[in-house]
């Protein structure tokens, strides 16, 4: 059984927010809720790096563990879904989530947050009919044999989605192709440093490929 995962290649992410609006397009979540967001570290500095973040569909997901109502659950393929009928808006999943994925439409007195919403890996959620599913959770692209729209539409193919093994393979190939120690999660300063240190550190991945 495949295990579905997202992976954002920070070397490719240009913070265009295509994933954010692609998600809106697929799921039509209301104004104020963005299931996916792009985070930029060191904005405007030489070490600037961006990364697109949403629910990571964790194994042993913290949100599932802390949910008082079992709103959250994991499918066999690793996708973590939520059942809006069960959600009471307590906010615990938000406290526990490492990535700030769960969001609530409201933030009112008496803990009135409304029903939690989060990325579904474009796999919809529990509902009787297609209409209800779309209304509550958005698209179910997985059921149609498609991957999440955010990854499919990523401008530079930075955001990868799919079976963890395949995602890892693609990423590994990229790293090999880049042939630099800073092939993946780089900051430019680092690259400059390696350049100054000379060629000795430059072609390591090439060696790796030669030796199979």
């Amino acid at each position, binding site marked *: 059984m495949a295990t579905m995962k997202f992976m954002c290649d920070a070397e490719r992410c240009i913070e265009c927010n295509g994933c954010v609006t692609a998600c809106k397009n697929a799921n039509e979540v209301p104004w104020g809720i963005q299931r996916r967001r792009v985070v930029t570290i060191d904005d405007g500095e030489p070490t600037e790096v961006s990364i697109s973040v949403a629910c990571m569909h964790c194994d042993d997901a913290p949100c599932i563990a802390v949910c008082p109502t079992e709103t959250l659950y994991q499918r066999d393929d690793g996708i973590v879904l939520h059942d809006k009928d069960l959600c009471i808006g307590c906010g615990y999943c938000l406290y526990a989530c490492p990535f700030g994925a769960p969001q609530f439409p409201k933030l009112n007195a008496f803990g009135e947050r409304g029903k939690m919403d989060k990325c579904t890996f474009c796999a919809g959620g529990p509902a009787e009919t297609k209409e209800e599913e779309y209304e509550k959770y958005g698209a179910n692209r997985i059921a149609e044999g498609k991957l999440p729209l955010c990854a499919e539409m990523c401008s530079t*193919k930075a955001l990868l989605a799919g079976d963890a093994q395949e995602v890892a393979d693609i990423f590994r190939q990229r790293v090999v192709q880049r042939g630099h120690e800073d092939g993946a999660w780089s900051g430019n300063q680092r690259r400059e440093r390696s350049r100054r240190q000379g060629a000795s550190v430059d072609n390591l991945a090439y060696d790796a490929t030669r030796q199979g």
Partner: protein
Amino acid sequence: MRLTKKSARPAGQGLGITRRQFLQRSGATTGGLAAAGFLGNSMMQRADAQEKTPVSDAAIETKRTICSHCSVGCGVYAEVQEGVWTGQEPAFDHPINRGAHCAKGASLREHGHSSRRLKYPMKLENGEWKRLSWEQAIEEVGDKVLELREKHGPDSVYWLGSAKFNNEQAYLLRKFAAMFGTNNTDHQARICHSTTVAGVANTWGYGAMTNSLNDLQNSRSILFIGSNPCEAHPIAMQHILLAKERSNAEIIVVDPRFTRTAAKATKYVRLRPGSDVAYVWGLLWHIFENGWEDKTYIEQRVYGMDKVRDEVAAFTPDVVESVTGVHEAEMYDVAKRLADNRPGCIVWCMGGTQHTTGNNNTRAYCILELALGNIGKSGGGANIFRGHDNVQGATDLGLMSHSLPGYYGLSEGAWQHWAKVWDVDYEWLKSRFDPTEYADGPPMYSNGITVSRWIDGVLEQDENIAQRTSLKGMFYWGHAVNSQTRGPEMKKAMNQLELMVIVDPYPTVAAVMHDRSDGVYLLPAATQFETTGSVTATNRALQWRDRVIEPQFESRPDHEIMYLLAKKLGFAEELFKHIQVNGNEPLIEDITREFNRGMWTVGYTGQSPERLKTHQQNWHTFSFRTMQAEGGPADKDYYGLPWPCWGNAEMNHPGTPLLYDTSKPVKEGGLTFRARFGVERDGISLLADGVYSEGSDLNDGYPEFTAEMLKQLGWWEELTSEEQAAAEGKNWKTDLSGGIQRVAIDHGCAPFGNAKARCEVWTFPDPIPKHREPLYTARRDLVEKFPTWDDFESFYRLPTLYRSIQENDVSDRYPITLTSGRLVEYEGGGEETRSMSWLAELQQEMFVEINPALANDLGIRNDDMVWLEGAEGGRVKIKAMVTPRVARDVVFMPFHFGGVFEGESLASHYPEGAQPYVLGEAANTATTYGYDSVTQMQETKVTLCRIEKASA
């Protein structure tokens, strides 16, 4: 981009119609089968209960279209059910974007759902918007136009067209203006890449991107100067990052701002705004000093490099450092990277073009690439990323005040050529123009006022304008006025006009920024998803768009509106002589075929609608790396038949993927430099020396082909007798049979000749590009050494100031340099994108980027509200974003906002329900005077300002 505080719900929620109402409307206006099916469907009830797009089991029609935002030309699969745009799927098989989209592209479907549209024709009457019927609107507008024409002549009405038109509409509006009898027509290319087109075309023939985005994958170094593709052309980054990853290409970003692109670069250089020429000369100084130039290439293919050497010699490292702020070591480093990593290319955008010295900048960039021998090679080139989706096409199709379609210019010969294509009497055409002679010559042959200067066209005294009167009526046909400089004066100009007509899917800032209470008409135009036609991407490739949905609300496609107006104004018969009109809608394909018959200069002749549709249906057959079809119905064609696609469609030319690439036969997309500037200059030959394209029968330089030349070469007999009849006395540009081109190409020759590129443009104010200080500069010490030009008395019909502005030193009162640029979420003036909730949510506030040091000096903290005052007094109240992205003496503003003017919201001026989700101060309220000395390009990238903390 960093976002500041956000609102929890869209502004002005509750205005406008709900999506539910939209669905009812779209059902009602669709008419016929679709409507019946739709209304009878149970979808309707569900739609009542929800805001989301209804889920339906109805059959899905998949339409192929092209994103209407930037010029990258991303393919889109739009899924439509019963007339409603219910899905958008990535076009993985599209050769340019492979399904990828930026924020704008990924939200295209909202075009079919946003209710923030101009919904029906309206007019401003006693300060109130009043709804009109189309008949009434056309009648009233037409009467007023006729009255103005009668009273003040045809040049009193300005037809401001759009880069958002498809090719057919752009061509049609140019033809429309011609038949109305004026050259006062233009579009955004003027304020976008006009300096590129002028500078580059005058260097080697054509003023367009030489290679393609896909070809960037083959580059070994890419120099971005005044270009930020991460925000302006995000999908281009896919190709750029591939170059970086596959071949360790050097990505060098030279910009006053540390842009998002800089964050992905291998080298970033911070440049003082407006010092591009000095910077390039600084690079060339090191290149010449170290002998890194491509000597053979220069000898064979370049004219005038010696004169460049002389100029460059003055730009020693210390001078360069003083002017640009870049240290010698940095200059050397970049020059070496460029020299060591060939083929390399240069990419520039508005940062290079939107200057008073824009034409100098663009030529300097070209000269750099010529010196390195990078032009005409895969991986090399001058890769000019155009702005709007069809700004390349609209430029090619001549929607400009100084040319007819195909860059034929405005000479009598050009008019005769087009009169012949249009099959109208030349004398009749001439009679349509003002019979008086202007200072610049007869109106028909003299350049019209440009879009950048319409403000002065209205405000200037009649005696100073080289036409009968100032402008009295303006058509803003798909134009964001907030993308133009000098906001306060623009407002004054608008107040002074007799007639304002805004034809647009959105009301635009033009509808709200004036103080008028009458005489403004709004005509709702359909978007490009509501019509069909071809669009030219930045790489010169034409792509065909399907109609995705029917025009929303009461909007109508632009070409239909042109027909209605032409009918009212009395020249519909001539305008549509060979174009079928169904109901009120001219047949798009007939328009394509018509320009195919006349666009010989740039090779828009081989792209018949049939071929374009074949390409559109076979995206998957084209290579992502080379753009060439591998098998399939378009076998060997390059995607989109990038112009020049020589001869007529029957000739089956594959298009030219790389301009001036001599390694391929012309028949297969090869080319030489164009012989555009004569054959010799001061006794030196301008023709190529010993180089020619692969398989050429002429093994040296040669001039452009004419009937006479064919005869001398003994190739005349290869024309058919009909071709001979048509070609007699003509040349490759004017021979409507295409015979001359066909025969030249049969012999492996480029129809336009084989010449050298020139570094010296002797017809320009600065034959060799010179560094000149901006009109508003903080570096007064450089003004004496690098002064601007003297004032021009009449230039595109208007007096144009240089020295008299620069002389006036305002740098003590306005010490901070102001520049502007783009954000990824918005496009152009932003009226459309700010009306899309998915995008608007991401950028809710206008801001100015200020360096932390400057902010501390000014006592400003992040998120404070500040007043920014431009050097001519325009003020904007915006939020401060403190960031090291900009240098200490430079501040940056994005230019997509509008709807707030000098601190005052114009929200109440919008027609109800048509106000964008996000409003903000327009950056250009604070920008100042300054126009390029060749094209009247506006200066938006360097001016001066002052900033102070706003009290409240």
